[in-house]
C-alpha cells in the first residue's frame, strides 16, 4: 500500500475531532508551527488507515505534522505540538 492510499483529508477526521471537542472543527483554522501557513483543518491532508485508531494531519504547505489524534480503549490522545494555535468559530453569525 502506498502512502497515498492512506491519504484522505481533514474532512474525513471531522467526526473524530467532533468526538473529542464536542463541536465541528473542520472549519477551524490552525497555524502550522513549521512554516506559519494558516488554513482550515479540513484543507489539510490527513493520513489514516481504515482500521487505524487515529489520524495524522499534516500541513498542506510544508508537510509538517500539525496534529495527531488517537482513539484508544477508553480514551483519546491528542498531540498538537505542530500547531501554534487553533482558531475555532464560536457559532455566532460571521463578521
Amino acid at each position, binding site marked *: 500500500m502506498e502512502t*497515498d*492510499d*492512506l*491519504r*484522505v*483529508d*481533514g*474532512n*474525513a477526521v*471531522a*467526526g473524530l475531532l*467532533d*468526538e473529542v*471537542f*464536542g*463541536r*465541528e*472543527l*473542520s*472549519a477551524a483554522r490552525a497555524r502550522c508551527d513549521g512554516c506559519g501557513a494558516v488554513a*482550515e*483543518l*479540513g*484543507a489539510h*491532508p490527513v493520513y*489514516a*488507515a*481504515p*482500521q487505524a485508531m487515529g489520524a495524522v494531519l499534516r500541513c498542506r504547505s510544508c508537510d509538517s505534522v500539525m496534529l495527531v489524534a488517537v482513539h484508544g480503549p477508553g480514551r483519546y490522545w491528542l498531540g498538537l505540538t505542530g500547531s501554534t494555535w487553533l482558531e475555532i*468559530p464560536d*457559532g*455566532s453569525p460571521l463578521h
Partner: protein
Amino acid sequence: MNAPKPLRWALADVVETNVETPRVRSIALDVPGWPGHLAGQHVDVRLTAEDGYQAQRSYSIASPPEANGRVTITVERLDDGEVSPYLTDELHQGDKLELRGPVGGYFVWRGELGGPVLLVAGGSGVVPLMAILRHRAATGDATPMRLLYSSRSAEDVIYRAELDRLGASPGVEIVHTLTRSQPPGWTGYARRIDRGLIAEVAWPPADRPLAYVCGPTRLVEAVAEGLVELGHEPERIRTERFGPTGG
C-alpha cells in the same frame, strides 16, 4: 451551526435505493432526530459484525438541506472494500443503518457565500457537489455554477439524467470529460483534468470564483495547484480528497 451538539449515532431507516451506475448506488435514509445539514457535509456510517468488529466510513450527503429530514448518500462499490460492497449490494429498503452527522463545516456552500461557483469532480467526488447544485435549484438561487466532471466512460457518469436537466437551467453549466472511452459521436472533452482544461473551463481569476474540488487525491492536487498557478486565490479553493480508504 450554533450551540455545539455532540455527534450521536442514530439508527436510520433505508427508505429507497437507486442504481446510479453499475458500480454506484444511492441510498435514501430517514434519520430520527436529523438536525438538518448544509450542502457539502457528510455522514459517518458504522457497520458492526456479529462478532462485534466495527468498520466506519465517511460518505458525502447527496441530498440538499431542503429534503425534509431525508438524507441520501451515494456510494461507489470498491471491490476490496469492507463497507461499500455491503452498502451497494446487500442493503435493501426496510433495513437499518447506523450513522451520525452531519459532519464537516469546511467543504460546504451556502447561498450567502455567493459565487460564481466552480465545481470540479472526479468520479464519485461529484456527490457533495451534487448536494450543492441541488441546494441551488431547491432554493431558486441564481448563483452561476459550472461543474467540470471527469468520468471514465458515459456509463460511469453518476446522476447523468439529472445533470442534463440541471445543465439546461439558466446559470448552470455541466461540462463532462470522459477519460477512458467515449460514445460514438462524442464531441466533449476526452482527457484528464489538467491545468489546460481548467483554464478552458474555469472563469478567469478576475471573476474570483469560489472553487470546490472533490475526487481522488491526485486529481484534487492537480486541480488545486492548477487553479493557483492560473492566478486563483488559494483561500477561495476548497478541497476534499478521498482515496481507497473510502472503501
